[in-house]
């Protein structure tokens, strides 16, 4: 009996101890919830070299930022026209970011309108789940437009120098000076290629590529098409120009037509020779390849902007036995043309081709300028290597181009 009483008391004491311990644990597990620390030193300045519709903000991270092991996952940028508010949300940035530009548009009716020359006040809200803390309000700050983008000085200087050199050689060419222009095999072969088509009594295929009329490579191709079409008209052969873009087609029709007129052969011009195919890349390839297989052109020109279709077309042309001249400024496609075509105009040679074919002094002057431009670039690179070796970083800064 005593033993039972002893055990009962012992059990009661044990249970009491467990309950008390549980209560202590519960008291210990209560955590004081406090908002995260706000960001510090929020600063806003007028974004340089812009049209005045932007303010650049920077700040120091909240000590509770997630990238520092804390709980703040993002910051909300808020703006007001008064220090007392009301503030509106302008943007949200992820934890770890310490700067962001508040950009807007100039159209007053637009939702994202950003007034120039207006005082603004900013604050940043650090968010950690449902908890948040606000920074001190910064302001006033205003966006002011600049009249010149000082980040582009190096561009102005380089283009200005190149233009001066080019104009100098144009002047020299006009005054009758004989300028040496290095020969380009691809250009020299144009006459031969057209002659071959004439002898064989087969058409010439001229592909302007997948570029639009606003691509400089396509414009360069128009100028070559003009020369080629004129020779085609003189030799009384025919030319086929399948087009990828309707605007390109319209310009190409006008270019070929005028060339035929210039050659004194307006009667030989057939409007249907310059035609629209499709503006689906691989459907276009299928159509051009079909044309090569059916019409068996003696000469294929691929001049303009090309992408993945370059090799499919050039290989089909090669298999059909045509002499092929290609040219593009798309670096990744040049190797394909080099492999599959007889002659390839590499990069800038495409732009030079029209001047080579024309041989007018004015155009040859620009080619000479281009060559001297390359010499200047080579010299700059060599000086840059020297500057890097002696640790002269100021030289590199000369070439900095701002946004």
């Amino acid at each position, binding site marked *: 009996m005593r033993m039972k009483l002893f055990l009962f008391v012992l059990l009661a004491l044990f249970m009491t101890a467990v309950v008390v311990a549980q209560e202590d644990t519960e008291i210990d597990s209560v955590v004081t919830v406090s908002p995260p620390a706000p960001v510090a030193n929020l600063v806003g300045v007028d974004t340089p070299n812009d*049209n005045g519709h932007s303010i650049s903000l920077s700040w120091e991270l909240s000590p509770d930022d997630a990238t520092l092991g804390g709980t703040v996952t993002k910051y909300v940028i808020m703006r007001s026209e008064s220090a007392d508010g009301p503030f509106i949300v302008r943007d949200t940035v992820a934890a770890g970011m310490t700067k962001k530009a508040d950009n807007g548009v100039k159209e007053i009716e637009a939702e994202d309108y950003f007034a120039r020359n207006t005082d603004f006040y900013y604050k940043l809200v650090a968010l950690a789940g449902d908890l948040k803390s606000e920074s001190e309000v910064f302001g006033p700050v205003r966006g002011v437009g600049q009249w010149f983008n000082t980040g582009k000085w190096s561009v102005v200087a380089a283009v200005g120098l190149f233009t001066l050199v080019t104009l100098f050689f144009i002047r020299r060419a006009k005054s009758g000076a004989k300028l040496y222009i290095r020969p380009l095999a691809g250009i020299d072969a144009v006459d031969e290629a057209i002659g071959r088509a004439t002898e064989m009594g087969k058409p010439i295929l001229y592909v302007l590529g997948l570029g639009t009329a606003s691509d400089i490579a396509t414009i360069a191709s128009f100028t070559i098409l*003009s020369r080629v079409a004129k020779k085609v008209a003189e030799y009384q052969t025919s030319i086929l120009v399948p087009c990828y873009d309707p605007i390109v087609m319209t310009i190409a029709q006008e*270019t070929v037509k005028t060339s035929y007129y210039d050659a004194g052969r307006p009667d030989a011009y057939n409007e249907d020779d310059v035609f629209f195919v499709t503006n689906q890349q691989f459907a276009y390839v299928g159509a051009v390849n079909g044309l090569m297989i059916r019409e068996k052109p003696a000469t294929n020109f691929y001049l303009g902007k090309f992408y993945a279709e370059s090799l499919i077309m050039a290989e089909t042309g090669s298999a059909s036995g045509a002499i092929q001249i290609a040219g593009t400024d798309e670096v990744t496609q040049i190797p394909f043309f080099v492999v599959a075509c007889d002659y390839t105009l590499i990069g800038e040679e495409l732009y030079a081709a029209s001047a080579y074919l024309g041989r007018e002094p004015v155009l040859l002057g620009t080619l000479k300028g281009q060559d001297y431009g390359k010499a200047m670039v080579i010299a700059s690179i060599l000086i840059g290597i020297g500057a890097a070796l002696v640790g002269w970083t100021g030289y590199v800064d000369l070439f900095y181009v701002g946004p």
Partner: protein
Amino acid sequence: MKRTVPLLITGIVGTVLIVSVLIPPAQSLGEDFSLFFDIIAVFAFFLGGGNLFRIHLKKVFHRKEDYGFSIVTLVGFLVTLTIGLFKIGNPEGISGSITAAGSGLQTIFVSIITPLSSTMYALLAFYVASASYRAFRAKNREATILLVSAFVILLGRTPLGMMLTGWIPEQFSIFQIPNLAVWIMNSANLAGQRSILIGVGLGVVAMSLRLILGMDRTYLGSDK
């Protein structure tokens, strides 16, 4: 007049676009001109469609060689145009989006155009093989260098490259084939690409100068 007006437009627009890069308040002018281009492009699509229809109709009408292809083109063109214009099969009706899932136009695109385009694209693999065969024949010194470089890169991109040269000690690791392949791509190849790009940049400036100043008028026809 026919030549003077286009030359004036080219000169003015070209100059304004250059200036807009340097003068921030004029930045939006570039966007405005792009908008003009888009508006013209919309009208040009009518020209393109009209031209396609006229040429193929003429071929069929005159029973020219291979006119069967033109019939297929015309049928495809008209069927797609009708389905697109009247939004046939569109689950949301005539007011729904033209690209809505399940619409007739979307079905044509997904079931016909996409597989056909993929088929054409897939042919590239065979063309690459035949072109590589021609390019990598060691006919002369340059072609031999090309062949060796290509061989190193091919091996370097496969586990075989590491298996063959993994034994080379760490201090000579540049001679391991995968590292050689990386060096060829990042140094030799990239340098070549950049030199071409610099040339392209200068060519673009020279070409733009010729066009803006009206020196090269060949795209308008006669130089006279």
